[in-house]
């Protein structure tokens, strides 16, 4: 309401807002809004709508749009409104368009011209409005139209304009870095000038407003992210600024909850983190100031902690300094011990960052971490898992992955399920202690999140099972396979298995189901038929199942055992040969034709356990030379490569290049199936080959190359690709890089115990940091065990380290720090209390402070005006104040919201009584009863009665 008087809108609009406020269901709300849309559509297009009316319509459109409905019919009117000369309307227009339009909307083009005009305006408020719109609406194409003007505005006398111009350039840069690139130097100049000016307190430059400086940091941050090296020379200036900010040399109005310009501090710390990363020299310049800030920041207020957290981030990003790391660890300890969930979350987050450079610090917080892990707060839990993920190593992988899987099963959000699943897989691949465990974990992951994991994971798993784990130990490999088969046979009957997992199961059962002789072929094929039947809607699974059946049959036959096809298998084949999917059909026919072959031929087609054998590939197809030569002599057309060919395709051409068309069909890739020769299939019999060139039946949905004696480029690309991937896995899989302590959790538990309770003389720090939690240690044996299994490996190591002599030092420095923390804040507030403009004034008399103190500043004049109006309002309010308050003080005893006071109904009498400048008067902060009452009356006058439905509408947000 401010100074505009009352609500400034018509009754109609207030009714709309009110009725929507009173709706109890979404559908009711929708109905009202749709009705409103109809009304507005009609009204807004009426000719000669007065401008003020139009303004209200536009605001109503904004309201509709805010509620999630489409107000696009009125966009054009909002655009028109920006053309208006009156600032009042223009401002509304700009507000509406920035809310309505995205940067790529068609109507933008109609606004650019207005923006151009407004950027030139004498009135700085118009310029500000235009710059606001620039930030949102100017897209890559239209940047050139305004950029020149925006750059000129960087030197505008009003700091508000300069600030917005900087932000506008920043948004241009985000949209299209190239178009602003030639201005980068300009930015640098502005930034550097400012930095220079500020850090030396010499006020020669044009810009000395902290707001502009703060704004300049945003684009600078982006630019530095892109190329750190260009800005290394600014490190000194940044450090200097930060120092001065921390010393409270900025105007007092930038203080927030007694912290000097915290948002600027945070931004600066972010920039320094970038600049100091991996740069020893720059980092060293920062140590002192960061240490100072950490010492000074108060840990009671949120914002102080925000600054502290940013310091930790910065410390973990720059070249590590032992002393700062120590301070950071202390700060983290405070976060973690806090009762506030927010701070614990930040603590976990910070720990996750710091742990990467100083892995030892986690263990002193182990119990806190475990508390967070078991916290009911999902966000905290999730963050803790992220931390655990970062600190996983071979000794604790089992516990962590188990926990992660439990968590994964418990959540529904697919985004995080996917993430957790892929993390489980990654950790399992990296640190698995045994093959058996690995298979178990993969089974669980697939079972519960199979459709969410990357299909590559399934392929990796199959490959791992097929190739073993890189060690030349056939016995272990086959043991692994049979354990895999066994676990799959157990799982396969469960309903609702994800498709990817079923594919793996089918493949493994087909390949290795009968390999160890434990299960009969008919048992396996029975299971496979069940799978195909149970998942009749999933063609891929069916295809895998059929192929697996074929393999089982082939292996049996090749081994010389008698094998009759199960009846359900038979019927499955029949069903599939009539399938709509040509892939399934082909597989079924192939199987049927294999059935008629003898054992020798079958052994050639389906060699046992050949999935890992390398396939030699003759890419030039030299074995066909004879055939080609013959054909050419008989008058066949020579082969024309695809790119030279215009229209007609003959069959042989298709066959020749088809492999290239589908080289990346990774999901269907089964390398071992390619080389098998000799099965009569549904291929055209016209081509006669020497025996070794008999086309292979490959159960692929795509066309298969027929001219193969093995070489297929499909197989080529696929196998190398997959092989590469596997190599990586193998390396990860070898012996763990280091296994620090024994991985049995009980032994770790013991060692941990000694470090916590026993070795006080060694390890004062740890026992001290655990003091508050001491009782819990006794109580929760289980938790402790968990801690030991999570952190155990490291405990042992750190013990060693600390016995090496660091303990004494760290103890001392910590205790002094603690002492400092207690004393410092009082000192700081005592010494730095006086406002520091004089500090800024060191240079010339026309210092920056002039803008704050001298009478030249129009703002201060404005403030003068406000003061006057304050006085006015004081008069007016007293004139009609007493009776109001008298009434309401009695009312308030009954509960002021519900009171059916007769005065409320006298709307007309009261209308306009509450003076607009009441609001300005209320600038004197603090809860004031009279104020609240005034507002209450005002609201009641507008016909909005606080219903019992939602009394909180009236409660002060900050109350």
């Amino acid at each position, binding site marked *: 309401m401010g*100074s505009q008087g009352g609500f400034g809108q018509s009754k109609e609009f207030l009714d709309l807002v009110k009725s929507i406020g009173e709706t109890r269901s979404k559908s009711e709300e929708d109905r009202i809004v749709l009705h409103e849309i109809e009304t507005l559509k009609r009204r807004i297009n009426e000719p000669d709508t007065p401008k003020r009316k139009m303004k209200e319509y536009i605001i109503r459109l904004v309201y509709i749009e805010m509620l999630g409905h489409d107000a696009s019919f009125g966009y054009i009117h909002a655009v028109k409104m920006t053309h208006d000369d009156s600032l009042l309307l223009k401002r509304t227009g700009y507000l509406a368009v920035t809310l309505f339009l995205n940067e790529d909307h068609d109507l933008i083009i109609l606004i650019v011209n207005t923006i151009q005009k407004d950027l030139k305006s004498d009135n700085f408020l118009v310029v500000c409005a235009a710059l606001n719109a620039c930030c949102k609406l100017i897209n890559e194409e239209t940047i050139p139209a305004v950029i020149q003007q925006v750059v000129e505005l960087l030197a505008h006398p009003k700091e508000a304009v300069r600030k917005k111009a900087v932000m506008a350039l*920043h948004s241009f840069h985000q949209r299209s870095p190239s178009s602003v690139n030639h201005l980068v130097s300009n930015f640098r100049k502005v930034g550097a000038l400012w930095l220079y000016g500020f850090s030396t307190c010499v006020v020669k430059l044009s810009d000395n407003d902290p707001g502009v400086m703060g704004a300049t940091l945003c684009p600078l941050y982006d630019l530095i992210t892109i190329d750190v090296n260009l800005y290394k020379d600014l490190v000194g200036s940044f450090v200097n600024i930060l120092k001065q900010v921390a010393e409270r040399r900025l105007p007092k109005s930038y203080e927030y909850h007694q912290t000097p310009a915290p948002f600027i501090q945070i931004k600066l710390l972010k920039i320094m983190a970038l600049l100091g990363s991996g740069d020893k020299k720059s980092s060293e310049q920062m140590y002192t100031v960061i240490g100072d800030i950490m010492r000074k920041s108060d840990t009671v207020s949120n914002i102080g902690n925000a600054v502290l957290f940013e310091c930790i981030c910065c410390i973990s990003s720059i070249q590590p300094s032992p002393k700062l790391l120590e301070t950071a660890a202390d700060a983290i300890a405070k976060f973690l011990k806090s009762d506030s969930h927010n701070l614990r979350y930040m603590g976990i987050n910070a720990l996750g960052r710091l742990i990467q450079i100083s892995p030892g610090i986690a263990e002193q917080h182990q119990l806190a971490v475990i508390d967070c892990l078991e916290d009911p707060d999902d966000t905290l839990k999730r963050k803790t898992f992220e931390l655990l993920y970062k600190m996983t190593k071979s000794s604790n992988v089992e516990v962590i992955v188990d926990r992660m899987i439990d968590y994964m099963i418990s959540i529904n959000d697919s985004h995080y399920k996917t993430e957790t699943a892929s993390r489980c897989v990654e950790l399992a691949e990296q640190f698995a202690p045994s093959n058996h465990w690995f298979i178990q974990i993969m089974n669980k992951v697939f079972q519960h999140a199979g459709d969410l994991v990357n299909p590559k994971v399934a392929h990796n798993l199959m490959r791992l099972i097929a190739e073993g784990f890189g060690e030349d130990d056939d016995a272990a490999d086959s043991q692994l396979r049979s354990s895999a088969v066994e676990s799959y046979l157990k799982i396969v009957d469960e309903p609702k298995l994800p498709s990817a997992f079923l594919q793996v199961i089918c493949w493994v059962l087909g390949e290795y189901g009968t390999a160890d002789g434990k299960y009969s072929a008919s048992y396996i094929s029975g299971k496979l038929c069940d799978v195909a039947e149970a998942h009749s809607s999933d063609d891929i699974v069916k295809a895998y199942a059929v192929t697996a059946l074929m393999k089982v049959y082939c292996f049996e036959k090749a081994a010389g055992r008698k094998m009759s096809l199960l009846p359900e298998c038979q019927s499955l084949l029949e069903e599939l040969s009539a399938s709509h999917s040509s892939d399934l059909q082909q597989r079924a026919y192939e199987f049927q034709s294999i059935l008629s072959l003898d054992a020798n031929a079958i052994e050639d087609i389906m060699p046992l356990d050949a999935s890992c054998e390398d396939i030699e590939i003759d890419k030039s197809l030299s074995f066909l030379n004879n055939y080609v030569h013959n054909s050419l002599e008989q008058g066949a057309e020579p082969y024309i490569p695809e790119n030279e060919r215009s229209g007609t395709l003959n069959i042989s051409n298709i066959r020749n290049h088809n492999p290239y068309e589908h080289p990346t069909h990774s999901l269907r890739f089964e390398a071992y199936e390619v080389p098998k020769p000799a099965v009569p299939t549904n291929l055209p019999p016209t081509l006669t080959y020497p025996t070794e060139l008999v086309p292979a039946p490959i159960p692929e949905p795509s066309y298969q190359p027929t001219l193969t004696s093995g070489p297929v480029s499909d197989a080529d690309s696929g196998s190398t690709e997959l092989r590469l991937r596997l190599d990586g896995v193998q390396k990860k899989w070898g012996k763990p890089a280091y296994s620090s302590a024994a991985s049995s959790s009980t032994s770790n538990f013991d060692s941990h115990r000694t470090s916590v309770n026993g070795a006080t003389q060694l390890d004062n720090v740890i026992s001290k940091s655990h003091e508050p939690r001491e009782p819990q240690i006794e109580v929760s044996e289980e938790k402790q065990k968990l801690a030991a299994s999570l952190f155990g490996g490291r405990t042992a190591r750190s013990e060693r380290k600390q016995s090496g002599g660091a303990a004494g030092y760290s103890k001392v420095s910590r205790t002094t720090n603690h002492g400092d923390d207690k004393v410092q804040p009082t000192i700081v507030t005592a010494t730095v209390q006086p406002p520091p403009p004089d500090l800024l004034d060191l240079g010339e008399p026309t210092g920056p402070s002039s803008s704050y103190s001298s009478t030249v500043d129009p703002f201060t004049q404005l403030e003068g005006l406000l003061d006057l109006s304050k006085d006015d309002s004081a008069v007016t309010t007293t004139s009609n104040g007493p009776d109001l308050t008298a009434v309401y003080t009695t009312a308030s005893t009954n509960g002021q919201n519900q009171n059916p006071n007769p005065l409320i109904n006298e709307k007309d009498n009261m209308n306009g009584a509450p003076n607009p400048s009441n609001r300005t008067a209320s600038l004197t902060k603090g809860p004031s009863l009279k104020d609240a009452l005034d507002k209450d009356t005002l609201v009641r006058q507008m016909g909005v009665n606080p219903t019992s439905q939602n009394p909180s509408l009236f409660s002060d947000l900050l109350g």
Partner: protein
Amino acid sequence: IHFVLSISRQGKVRLTKWYSPYSQKERSKVIRELSGMILTRGPKLCNFVEWRGFKVVYKRYAGLYFCMCINQEDNELEILEIIQYFVETLNRYFGNVCELDLIFHFHKTYYILDEILIAGELQESSQNTVHRLIDAQDSLVEAAKEEENTVSYIIAQVAN
């Protein structure tokens, strides 16, 4: 900051400001998802939720939730304080701001937000400056209105 939302405890939208492009459909989906997520959280839990790879920082004031969506690597506490700063600014402008003020003066809330955040970045961290600007705008608007009134008054006089 990708967007700013303000939702009442009943899940009614009080303010939306989008700094990253979202279609109208996505917007309602976002609001639905987030209100389902945030409104159900208990009072003592932390003020951050992870959502679609972003983080949403929210804070409850009486019956009103203010939410801001940020990137994974941003400083949550800072954003929490930006919310607080925004509400304090509103409080100073409206004088003991309550939800009703925002409902009926959502456009003014937008103007104030525009002075604090621009293109998803904090542009001004001094409350005084923000207030000076907003007051300057208001007084200008006021002046414009008066002028308009007098002009129309004169015209009306002349017409008569």
